[in-house]
């Protein structure tokens, strides 16, 4: 008989995985929803955020509350990188076929992975939790680190924040309009070019933020970009590309499949996730919550 506290521990671990993934996948989904570009380089932005956060923590002092400043700074820096890439290169790809867009973002993966390797080397790096997050809460007989609790609160807050931005502000209305009909919006006088840059930067910000926040939990090493993009990809496909709540749900499902899949098929949990992704693509290619795109 499996202990209930053990099951609860698995559940919590799945939930925290889900929240990290949501942070990253939300950016991927947002960018696809508005720009209609599937950004392979999103995982590279995540990696860049993680390494920049590590660097900032080294400069500002490890094991201090300046961790939060480093996290936010890394997110902003990645947003800036994203904005530059969109402004200088990506915008010339919108009219091209998907193949060229996909390969362009894949080229970014290659370039960024080597820039990171060149700058920070290949050894594993890690960041300490800030002192305010050292403790743990005792819930149902298992210890949940404070930092995990923080992440589990942050995930839904960000989801809600994005939802409010998109549905309750004038800017959000413009963004939703851009997703529907770019040309009409442009004809109505909106500056669609900067809107796209802004959305790409916002998506990149979430990737960078996710990477920075993950540093106390996972170690930094080359290859983390490819690993996360595959996972984020599964999440957005399950939930529906371009759908915010779909992505949230997709992350929750994926987190639990991974956490409990390990108990049922110890060696095949990642495999189970791919099968789930393929099954959803076969039955509902636009995902659980997405809408089919006509192109």
């Amino acid at each position: 008989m499996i202990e209930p506290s053990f099951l609860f521990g698995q559940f919590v671990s799945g939930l925290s995985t889900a929240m990290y993934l949501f942070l990253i996948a939300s950016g991927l989904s947002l960018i696809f929803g508005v720009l209609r570009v599937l950004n392979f380089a999103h995982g590279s932005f995540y990696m860049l955020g993680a390494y920049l956060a590590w660097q900032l923590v080294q400069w500002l002092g490890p094991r201090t509350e300046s961790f939060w400043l480093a996290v936010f700074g890394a997110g902003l820096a990645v947003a800036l990188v994203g904005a530059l890439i969109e402004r200088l290169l990506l915008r010339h790809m919108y009219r091209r076929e998907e193949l060229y867009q996909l390969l362009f973002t894949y080229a970014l993966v290659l370039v960024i992975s080597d820039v990171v390797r060149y700058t920070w080397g290949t050894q594993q790096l890690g960041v300490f939790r800030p002192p305010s997050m050292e403790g743990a809460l005792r819930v149902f007989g298992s210890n949940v680190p404070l930092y995990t609790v923080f992440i589990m609160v942050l995930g839904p807050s960000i989801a809600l924040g994005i939802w409010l931005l998109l549905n309750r502000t004038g800017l959000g209305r413009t963004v939703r309009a851009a997703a529907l009909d770019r040309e009409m919006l442009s004809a109505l006088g909106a500056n669609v070019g900067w809107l796209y840059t802004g959305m790409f930067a916002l998506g990149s910000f979430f990737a960078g933020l996710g990477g920075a926040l993950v540093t106390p939990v996972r170690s930094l090493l080359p290859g983390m970009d490819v690993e996360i993009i595959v996972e984020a990809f599964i999440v957005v496909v399950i939930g529906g590309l371009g759908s915010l709540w779909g992505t949230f749900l997709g992350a929750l499902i994926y987190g639990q499949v991974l956490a409990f899949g390990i108990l049922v098929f110890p060696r095949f949990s990642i495999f189970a996730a791919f099968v789930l992704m393929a099954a959803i693509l076969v039955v509902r290619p636009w995902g659980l919550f997405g809408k089919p795109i006509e192109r």
Partner: protein
Amino acid sequence: MPWMTILVLALATVPWMGSRFYTFLATDIVILALFATSLNLLLGQTGLVSFGHAAYFGVGAYTCAILMKTHGAPFAVGLLAAPILAGLAAAVFGYFCVRLTRIYFAMLTLAFAQIVWGICFKWNAVTGGEQGMSDVPYPDLSWMGALPFIGSLRVGEQYYLLALAIVALCIALLRMIVDSPFGRMLSLIRENPERARFVGLDVRRYELGAFVLAGAFAGVAGALFGLFNRGVFPDFAYWSKSAEVLIMVILGGMGHFWGPAIGAGALILLNQQISAYTQFWPFVLGTTLIILLFVFPGGIVGTLAAAWARLRK
């Protein structure tokens, strides 16, 4: 096909050029040229963007290696089984893929390829898991020893000639497929799928046919590559491998039959040159790819053909 005969004969002289390294490079190039040409049956011919072509390369490689190493089967059996299993996998996956369009097609091919990778990576008992399978036996080439000229060559050089012959045969078959009425229908589907439907074509069936054929030929390339490499590894089916072969096709030019083969050769030679100077090959590859996408979207052959057309005016 006099051009092709001349090309094959020219390539067959490589073992006599005096360097084992040339033969090694040439083997790599001809095998991957077949892999890239097989992908172009989907990409350039039918207009289907597969982001998971490595799956069938991997299935072919593992099929041949498992048969030869685990079951001691002769090379001929492994080589025949590879395209059959790869084609079967392509038939099953393709059945679902051709129902989707554009970006969803690309995503589903990628998802299926990751499933194949997951199986190779985790099924330790059969595939060797993460470590892959090393020391796959070389095919028995003693019969080549009795042939004039070839008999005195080293085993690696004999294998190169064998691979060259097999690849030449496969590429000739692909050329015949492209030139056949079936191939013409595929280009009709690429140019105007709606019109193809109007004239009564079962578009999905033709697309599935192209998918299976492309998968089977990729399987042959995979089988040859596994033996050349003396081992098969899960990386063979990973998505970066699918991206690599796509880059070869784009680099050479997907609008021309020979483009992908030329792209495969150019990419491998470039890799050799760059790796001598720096370990940052991905950076060079990424930058090259960006320049290619922005400045030379037609690839090497497309750019040369355009320049030639301008000169003749």
